[in-house]
């Protein structure tokens, strides 16, 4: 029997249900929902960073270039690397700050 958890994005109060064995990011994407920026989905690029405010999760290894050990310990993690073991409330931390509109290389022109 599939087991779901409810993920709530604090900024928008939007929520979606996520399979317990899916990452919080992929759970959002699978339903066509938006909110958390999507990057590599494998813990390398850092764009899907969130702060978990409430709830429990399991995690896999993520890049130290984007999440320090202290951050990780405080629940500031990449949403592609965490799976919900309870309902979660989270805040979006990572922005697509390097995309075409905001790239310093572009802005410099």
């Amino acid at each position, binding site marked *: 029997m599939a087991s779901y958890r409810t993920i709530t994005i604090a900024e928008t109060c939007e929520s979606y249900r996520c399979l317990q064995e899916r990452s919080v990011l992929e759970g959002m994407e699978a339903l066509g929902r938006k909110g958390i920026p999507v990057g*590599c989905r*494998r813990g390398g*690029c850092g*764009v899907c960073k969130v702060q978990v405010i409430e709830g429990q999760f399991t995690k896999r290894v993520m890049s130290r270039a984007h999440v320090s050990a202290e951050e990780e310990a405080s629940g500031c993690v990449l949403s592609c690397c965490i799976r919900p073991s309870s309902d979660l409330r989270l805040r979006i931390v990572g922005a*697509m700050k*390097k995309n*075409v509109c905001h790239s*310093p290389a572009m802005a410099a*022109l």
Partner: protein
Amino acid sequence: MAMTGVLRPGHAQLRVLDLEESVKWYTDVMGLVPMGRDKQGRAYFKTRAERDHNSIILRQADQAGIDFFAFKVLDKTTLEDFDRKLNAYGVKTERIPAGELLGTGERVRFKIPTGHTIELYAEKKDVGNGMGYNDPEVDVLSGPGIRPIRMDHALLYGADLDGSTKLFTEVLGFTLVERVKMEDGKTDLAVWLTCSAKAHDLAMVRHAEDDKLHHVSFQLQSWEGVLRAADIMSINRVSIDMGPTRHGITQGTTIYFFEPSGNRLETFSGGYDHYPDMHPITWSWEEVGRSIFYHDRKLNDAFLGVVT
């Protein structure tokens, strides 16, 4: 065209977050051939069709990305010659002794203006593609996994695009094949360079952060092979960034996807041949979407924003 100087991309060393998970994935999903590990614990791979000992090296690290990208040159005399030319151009080089990478001869290592570490080498152990050099059969590359033909090229991101382009074209003999201009119509946003008759052996995009990897690319036989790769990716729940689709630039068919540490890879097929007498193709800022993703005709957020 006589092939001299820099022959082709030879190896890429990637940083991975979980070596054992990655070794399994590169073996089972990518269908690369494991070629052993060295004393440092680095894991080596080649495609089945490649004849040289290795083309992908994985190193366990706490962040993803690329350590270095290397090109094979014609012979040892050519290697010495490039070392001298780089020094004369003002680029400091370092010699990495033969054997530091398994099966690989002495390497000349240097940093390019976009911050990437590039290597040149002349010798890598010829282990063959398993078909032999006398009366070989065709290898239909059957079996599990994507099984690409070869590691083909890389796309690197960094700030001083002009500096790196100048180094590759003026010192290492690369030719400009295509480029995308920025809004001002003058500054290059991206360049595609070749050292052979391929549409590209190296591409670079202007980016605020240096030493970033956009992707390492593997060649497939056909568009049908690209679709087969996409099926294998979905079966294995591989994170797909874009595709299957076609690039306007090089006209190759493509999938961008991410390996288990978030380093982007590409499987592609096709693309036209380029000879040094051919005029470079220029894309304008307004057509950048079509230049990168020919069918969507727009960039996705990840193209300029997601790198390792």
